[in-house]
């Protein structure tokens, strides 16, 4: 590998210390039982209970619109910039474009890895159907999402926050967009999984050849029109489980919407009040 002269490089080879801890002899099934016992999850939530959401707009002063979201410990910040001309483009496009970049601050290679690229594409796909792209032909809106702390469901947190950031930036939109994640493992559905839950849902834990579903589903919904703008699933899930999960996720999204609405109204009231103060200041 060529030397990266634009950064300060450490020693050539480093290894994370977690690999040398005392051997973890717990089987996945035991780990699962620890995470989920007596119908309660590790953080005392019911399986279909969403974590508390904290939203804030206007966190990045340099951006046109920005939002910060917390889902439990998961923290994501999203900023949206003014439309600019699509670079390196010769033909005319009738519809504006959306450029999404999803980044995770996990210490790894500086380039976007495949997972981040995939998430960027999913985010783009989710947001494309809600933005009125015909309003800014031949221009693109840049959206950047940065995961500060990943404790599960970073993608849906980023999409919900991006929706709020877009409205904060005043980008014309058809509808509010919210998103939710669900993990399935061992016949239990975990709404809004934490990082450990997500990791467990990623693998199959029942070794005795049972037909258990496992996997993760992310959906994004346009609330008023009851449309699913993006659906993404990985793992190994039966049709019945998917059908049930979609219903669960739809209600979860419906529950998030009032929160987002309330936040936006609060934000607008605040802006109006600030403007009034400003007008009074100027006229006096």
């Amino acid at each position: 590998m060529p030397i990266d002269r634009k950064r300060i490089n450490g020693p050539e080879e480093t290894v994370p210390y977690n690999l040398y801890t005392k051997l973890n002899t717990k089987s996945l099934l035991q780990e699962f039982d620890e995470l989920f016992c007596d119908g309660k999850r590790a953080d005392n939530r019911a399986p279909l209970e969403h974590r508390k959401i904290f939203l804030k707009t206007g966190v990045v002063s340099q951006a046109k619109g920005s939002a910060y979201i917390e889902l439990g410990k998961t923290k994501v910040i999203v900023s949206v910039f003014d439309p600019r001309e699509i670079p390196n483009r010769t033909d005319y496009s009738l519809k504006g474009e959306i450029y999404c970049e999803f980044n995770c601050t996990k210490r790894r290679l500086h380039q976007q890895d495949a997972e981040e690229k995939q998430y960027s594409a999913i985010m783009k796909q989710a947001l494309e159907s809600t933005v009125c792209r015909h309003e800014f032909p031949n221009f693109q809106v840049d959206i950047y999402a940065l995961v500060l702390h990943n404790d599960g469901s970073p993608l849906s947190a980023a999409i919900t926050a991006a929706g709020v950031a877009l409205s904060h930036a005043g980008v014309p939109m058809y509808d509010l967009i919210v998103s939710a994640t669900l993990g399935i493992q061992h016949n239990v559905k975990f709404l809004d999984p934490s990082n450990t839950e997500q990791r467990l849902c990623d693998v199959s834990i029942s070794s005795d050849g049972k037909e258990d579903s496992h996997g993760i589903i992310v959906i994004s919904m346009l609330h008023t029109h009851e449309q699913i703008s993006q659906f993404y699933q990985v793992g190994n899930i039966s049709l019945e489980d998917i059908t049930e999960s979609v219903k669960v996720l739809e209600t979860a999204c419906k529950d998030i919407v009032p929160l987002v609405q309330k936040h936006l109204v609060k934000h607008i009231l605040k802006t109006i009040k600030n403007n009034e103060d400003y007008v009074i200041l100027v006229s006096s």
Partner: protein
Amino acid sequence: MTLCEAEKTFVLHGVEENFRIDGREREDYRPMELETDIVSHAFGSARLRLANTDVLVAVKIEVDTPFPERPFEGKLEFFVDCSANATPDFEGRGGEDVAIEISNTLSAAYHSPKVFDLRKLCILKGRKCWKIFVDILLLECGGNLFDAVSLAVKAALWNTQVPLIRQIDIDGNNVELKVSELSDCQRLDVKTAPVMVTVCKIGEHCIVDPNVAEEQCSVGSIVVSVSENKFSTVLQTGTGSLHSSTLLDCLKLGYKVAQRLDDALWSTLSKIQPTEDVGFLK
């Protein structure tokens, strides 16, 4: 190729009448040709031609060290190369987005251990494992890339010969492997490998295996990847959105068609087997 509004309406009416522009019904596939073992230096290969779509897949195997966090697993990597001849859109860096989308979707589809068990590729825990490179070359684009690629990949993996390990010498930190000859190999277990089906929504109906013209008429499509009787990945593509009931209809249709497709592929592959065994001078 761009269609005008009148042409789009024509395609749409055809779909409504269950009589598509090339004479198929909504759930019909176009004819396919499958060849295996055509790249002599690869460990396994397959070429699939679905009407105008032409895909060549070659599999290469190497010995590698497992990821430190997953010492019991081998590695599987997909790489998609879009030939500039496939479609004019792929010229320059045009094919890169498509390539990344396909390879990401394939990795997601093969992710679950129930679909493809990477533990079988482990040679020595934490030290040595097999790494499988699946190189996919898109020779011609005639619509419905996902389906064609997934079938070709499954066929190529089925065709792949993994050498047997004869002997392992461990001397301190050095591990030496003695590998069997190419004539004495083991096949990969790919019964559960996923098959992808693109379900395209045109007007009020859903169709499978869209050609280029039909792809343009659709606002959104769902790519489902089915392994045995479970979904291994579902991805929505295109710019539109769907109602949840439509989404579930698409999933059901995709599921049904994928199982039919998988059966057809499997029966075709099992027909190949006997002739090949003769070639190995057993």
